[in-house]
């Protein structure tokens, strides 16, 4: 029995190692001296670790600015998405209003429609609104988060009606009920949703690529993709750029992984 236990665990460890090896290697190469990585056989560890690539990245390449853009866009996207979806999700679960179920069915059906369908007209729409090449243009898709509404609604369904009725009898307005009773119960799903939107908007690439023309507005992925098309030979710098781009979200995920994974299940399986 114990042998079995160890062999299964060993296998899992091996699979896990293979899985995260590219990430470890990314970090390792980012500390190598210029040109060190372009060798055969590929070195696994830097001969003498250096921060040179990061200095260059934040100095010459001005990556701090892109980091700022990414943080700004993702934070605003998260805030706006929460502001828009939480009340809507709650309303769809607990407030019976005319047309609610029909609208909700349409929303669920719309979940299958990929957002890229409307990308070209959306660009023209934003051009008409003067939002092309602005942070606002990059934020817009996050306001229309059907998945968020869906997630919040699923969670709200588990709130007992009696609890809300009791509050109504005590004279609480619908707004107070949402704020004082529902929001505290929703805390875990709010964390999940916030994390989900933050990570997704941070990692988003196609839309910011289209809507942001000015390099001063680039988010990290867009900037990284642009420079990866130019500095193809400089692996060490590119790896450092990849670390700066992905490490923040990776750390955020590791810190809050329970919320993320549980929420993911709430959204996909129960639905």
């Amino acid at each position, binding site marked *: 029995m114990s042998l079995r236990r160890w062999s299964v665990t060993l296998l899992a460890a091996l699979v896990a190692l293979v899985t995260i090896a590219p990430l470890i290697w990314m970090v390792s190469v980012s500390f190598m001296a210029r040109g060190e990585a372009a060798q055969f056989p590929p070195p696994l560890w830097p001969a003498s670790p250096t921060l040179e690539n990061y200095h260059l990245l934040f100095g010459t390449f001005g990556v701090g600015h892109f980091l700022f853009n990414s943080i700004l866009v993702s934070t605003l996207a998260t805030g706006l998405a929460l502001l828009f979806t939480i*009340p809507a999700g709650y309303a769809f679960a607990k407030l019976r209003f005319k047309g609610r179920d029909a609208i909700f069915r349409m929303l669920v059906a719309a979940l299958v429609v990929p957002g890229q369908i409307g990308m070209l007209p959306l660009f023209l729409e934003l051009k008409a609104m003067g939002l092309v090449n*602005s942070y606002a243009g990059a934020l817009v898709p996050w306001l229309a988060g059907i998945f968020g509404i869906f997630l919040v609604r699923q969670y709200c369904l588990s709130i007992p009606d009696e609890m809300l009725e009791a509050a109504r009898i005590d004279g609480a307005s619908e707004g107070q009920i949402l704020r004082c009773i529902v929001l505290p119960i929703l805390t875990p799903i709010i964390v999940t949703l916030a994390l989900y939107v933050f990570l997704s908007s941070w990692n988003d690439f196609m839309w910011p690529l289209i*809507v942001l023309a000015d*390099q001063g507005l680039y988010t990290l992925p867009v900037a990284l993709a*642009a420079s990866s098309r130019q500095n193809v030979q400089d692996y060490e710098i590119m790896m450092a750029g990849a670390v700066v781009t992905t490490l923040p979200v990776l750390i955020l995920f590791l810190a809050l992984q329970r919320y993320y994974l549980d929420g993911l299940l709430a959204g996909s399986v129960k639905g």
Partner: protein
Amino acid sequence: MQLTRRQLTGALAALPLLPTLGACGARDSDVLTVWAMGNEAASLPALLQGIDWPASAPPVSVQPLPWAAAHEKLLTGFAGGSLPSVGQIGNSWIAELAAIGAIAPVPAYARRLLDDQFGAVIDTNRIGGKSWGIPWYVDTRLQYYRKDLFERAGYVEPPPDWTGWKAALHKVKKVAGDGNFALLYPLNEYEQLTTLALSAGARMLRDDGGRGAFSDAEFKAALAFYKSLFDEGLAPRVSMAQISNVWTEFARGYFSLFLSGPWTIGDMRSRLAPALEGNWGTAANPGPGGTGSAAPGGSSLVVFAGSPHGEAAWDLVARLMAPGAQLALHEATGDLPARRSVWAEAGLANDPAVAPFRIQLERATALPKVPEWERIVTEMQIVAERMVRGQFSVDEAAKEMDARADRLLEKRRWMLDKGRAL
């Protein structure tokens, strides 16, 4: 209810505020922004320090664009109204940007910057009777060849006329030995065929750029010559992706001649095996009856329409065009200067690898100047590849190219009818 309502009105009120967030990205009126690409963008900051920019003028800020995404970014910038003041533009994009009104024509006071330049390059930037950009550096494509193999075949350099040229290639192929070819004309690149076509004097489009002219006798002659190079086994039927490393293959004699631009000189010197040093050369393209032609390339400096710094922008362009700045650009990037006088100053005429570019640039011909051109040649090459692979005869291929070009130009013909095309 109040709190929620306040939250909601807050959220709704934030919507109109979004444009103010957008203002962060709008054209910054205090700074004169320059968009540039690749190596030129990298060397611009140093160049700017040497041009003596007056302190009273708006400060200049350089924004690099990656070459691979530059075209998209220019058009997004146009759509979003966020184009900068000055830009480095590939010469082949001028027609498109002029057609949509994204760039401003060269004003009278800046026209002197066009003196002392190569005629064909100036012509490329001339659309609807106006010049739209100042050529900044120039390039064109001509032949790179293996001197040693040509010498062993009995030639000092490739003959300038098609008949002699092809005869020489047959001998070179024999010298190179079994399994090797004489030249590399990758089937996914259109520059080889357009160079042959220009050398044969083909116009490629007719009716003011409204229809394809690929069935003209001149183009068909070029097309037939192109096809014969493959049919006679002088060129392998491969695309660039199948050549893993051009330098290795050139060094081992898989092919002895190929077409490329001045940027390859640096690569030749740094990447070719030392044993081949001095064993390669460049030469002007062959034509049906003597030295042929080529398409002028390179980048121009343009001022975008609606720039708030019009005069300062042209002033900056003028300073970047000054002989000293042209020389500095050449030294920093290896780009060939647009001004002919700078060629002598840089000693380029004495460099045997560079001198043929001068000859070729003097004998270059502008390609058709319609916004659809890039798509048309892409289609042209797809048809040419099929012809080489045996799907079409020369006549059928020419007809098919015309059909595809006419389809792509349908909108342009409509625009011409309405008097809206440049």
